[in-house]
């Protein structure tokens, strides 16, 4: 009888496969590689090691948030399988990891990969493979380019549009000001500088009297501040990351320079910048934001903040709650969940991009009131709103309206 049994087994297996393959059995669900009735595979690449490892917490927050989603039943009954790899902020490694995710792990999409050089390295590959490179974690301007790169989409307000908002403010309130700029010597710093120059337009060359750049490897930037003061500038545009921002604020006060001080949104954290710099030195600094700062006392009883805290208590208890990156990771993960929900049972890569390019007035708990996500097939810059704020007492005081500024790539 063994021969008969063999044949019977083969027959039933064939029937089972045929049933599984027939479209009718799947209740009209459509899938690309990486999605099924039970699971959605999401890839992610983060610098868990190397010079930018401080950002690794974003990946950990996202993993925690997807755990929460899975514990609550998943997205339309499908669990998220979040595969996150380390690239150490090295572009060749990013290419290797992206190819591993797409070709070996077979993910549906790569989500929130971090850094401008790493994302630049894989952009062409992702678009050739037609795999979404969704909500990249960088503020460079070039991600908003749906015509040439229809599979790549940014997330946060880009550096250039933020700079333009300050430029607009300077032109209106200090039209005869003399501007000194301190910036980090990389793509991030140069993007801000370009935004400022573009925003000032023809007056850029006459208004900007001094530019100083620093390297992240420098232990202190004191000498740059002294040079900038000597230029006689009365406006200081401070394009620095948190550690250097605190140093700069202190030094400016120490040498008795009293410029109108603009600080980039990268370093607005009260816990890691404003407090270490000394509140007495912070008064009157102007910046902008789109997220609620968890260390800002004005949000103590806010509903969105409470929800965020409850999430951290349960799913990420060892998170550093003064780290704005934890807020960032939480918010962008919510953005992805919104898109995947909108996809319904059509989990194809094309539909993911279609839904991602069709977000209307999405408000999330940790956004400042009035900030909304908006995309369209010609606008791949999801968040392009910021609000100006001025430091007063021990927190930021927002002023003016929420300002939109889109810059295409």
């Amino acid at each position, binding site marked *: 009888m063994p021969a008969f049994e063999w044949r019977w087994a083969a027959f039933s297996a064939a029937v089972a496969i045929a049933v599984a393959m027939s479209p009718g059995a799947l209740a009209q669900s459509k899938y690309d590689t990486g999605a099924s009735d039970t699971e959605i595979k999401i890839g992610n690449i983060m610098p868990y090691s190397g010079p930018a490892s401080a950002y690794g917490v974003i990946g950990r927050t996202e993993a925690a948030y997807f755990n929460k989603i899975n514990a609550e039943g998943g997205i339309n009954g499908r669990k998220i399988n979040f595969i*996150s790899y380390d690239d150490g902020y090295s572009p060749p490694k990013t290419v290797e990891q992206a190819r591993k995710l797409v070709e070996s792990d077979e993910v549906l999409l790569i989500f929130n990969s971090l850094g401008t*050089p790493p994302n630049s390295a894989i952009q062409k590959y992702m678009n050739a493979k037609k795999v979404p490179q969704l909500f990249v974690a960088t503020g460079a301007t070039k991600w908003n380019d749906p015509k040439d790169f229809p599979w790549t989409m940014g997330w946060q307000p880009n550096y250039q549009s933020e700079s333009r908002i300050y430029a607009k403010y300077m032109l209106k309130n200090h039209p005869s000001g003399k501007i000194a700029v301190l910036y980090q010597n990389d793509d991030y710093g140069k993007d801000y500088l370009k935004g400022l120059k573009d925003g000032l337009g023809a007056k850029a060359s006459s208004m900007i009297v001094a530019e100083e750049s620093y390297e992240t490897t420098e232990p202190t930037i004191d000498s740059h501040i002294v040079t900038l003061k000597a230029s006689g500038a009365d406006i200081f545009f401070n394009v620095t990351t948190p550690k250097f921002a605190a140093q700069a604020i202190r030094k400016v006060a120490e040498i008795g320079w009293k410029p109108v001080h603009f600080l980039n949104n990268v370093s607005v954290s009260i816990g890691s910048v404003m407090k270490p710099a000394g509140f007495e030195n912070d008064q009157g600094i102007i910046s902008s934001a789109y997220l609620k700062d968890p260390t800002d006392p004005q949000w103590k009883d806010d509903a969105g903040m409470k929800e965020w805290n409850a999430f951290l208590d349960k799913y990420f208890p060892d998170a550093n709650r003064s780290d704005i990156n934890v807020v960032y990771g939480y918010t962008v993960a919510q953005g992805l969940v919104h898109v995947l929900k909108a996809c319904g049972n059509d989990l194809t890569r094309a539909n993911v991009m279609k839904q991602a390019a069709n977000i209307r007035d999405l408000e999330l708990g940790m956004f400042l009131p009035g900030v909304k996500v908006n995309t369209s097939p010609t606008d791949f810059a999801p968040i392009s709103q910021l609000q100006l704020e001025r430091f007063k007492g021990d927190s930021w005081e927002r002023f003016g309206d929420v300002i939109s500024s889109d810059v295409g790539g």
Partner: protein
Amino acid sequence: MSAAVEEVVTEAPAVEAVPKRAMTLGTGTSLTVLALLVVAPLFVKNFIIFQMTMLLVYGLAVLALNILTGGSGQFSLGQSAFYAIGAYTSAILMEQYNVNYVLTLPVSGALCFAAGFLFGQPALRLSGVYLALATFALATAMPQLLKLNFLEPWTGGVQGLVVTKPDAPFGLPMSQDMWLYYFTLVITIAIYIASVNLLRSRSGRAFMAIRDNEIAASAMGIDVALYKTLAFGVSAGITGVAGSLGAIVVQFVAPDSYTITLAIALFLGMVVGGVGWLPGSIVGSAFIIFVPNIAESISKGLSGAVFGVLLFLVIFAVPHGARQVAIVCQQALAKYKRR
């Protein structure tokens, strides 16, 4: 001068002397490895082919360092700089001047040979750890030099350059990845054979004589200064070719790709593969590509620490790297044959 000479005499050799026959593999083993490298890509996914290509590229860079350190006894932590020059040369020629990718390789090689030869001149006055520090300076300076404003029209500044991946020529029915793999393989084998021959030649013997004892070498009539700089030049030239291939395979160059981390990785690869043992280069290259991935799969948060532990274990168990493993295997095999 005499003080320096005395120091050289009393100093223990920085690199252990490796007899030149022990620098290569036997013919049978070489052919087996070659056959594996040729056949393997036919059975694996494109992603694995890509990894194998990177294995060859880094293997080439480690080989170059091996000629310098294992051959002529000079240290370098600046290989990433030559790798970067090679990568940028190819990227700029291909993207800005539409030069065929094959033609960019000799240009990179020649340019890097010149750069290495010139850098070797001041480096002549230094030895041991001092030379390592001088080359270290080169590696830390390179990413910043690439960001310089006046070079931006060519280098793309901090944004880097995207490189177009070449198709297989003559309408060959293979994917881009597979074509690049075989292309890289041919170049790697050519350079490997050339390197083996170089080390067996008169120049190679001169390198090794300098490594073992500079004074004895000069007494034998070897132009120490010339051969030391020559070793630097050859090593830089091969590294440059590896950089070019790396740029074409990865399709992207940016200053962040060529930091000191890369130089240290290459150094690590050489030590793990066995200093002075050329076939070990490929083993060392495998170590620097795959072990970080293994470390990451063990613990994401502590991947660096896990990598450190693995590295420590390797250095502790087999201080002479893959060469030691190969020798042990060879002896076991010989014993088995005799029985």
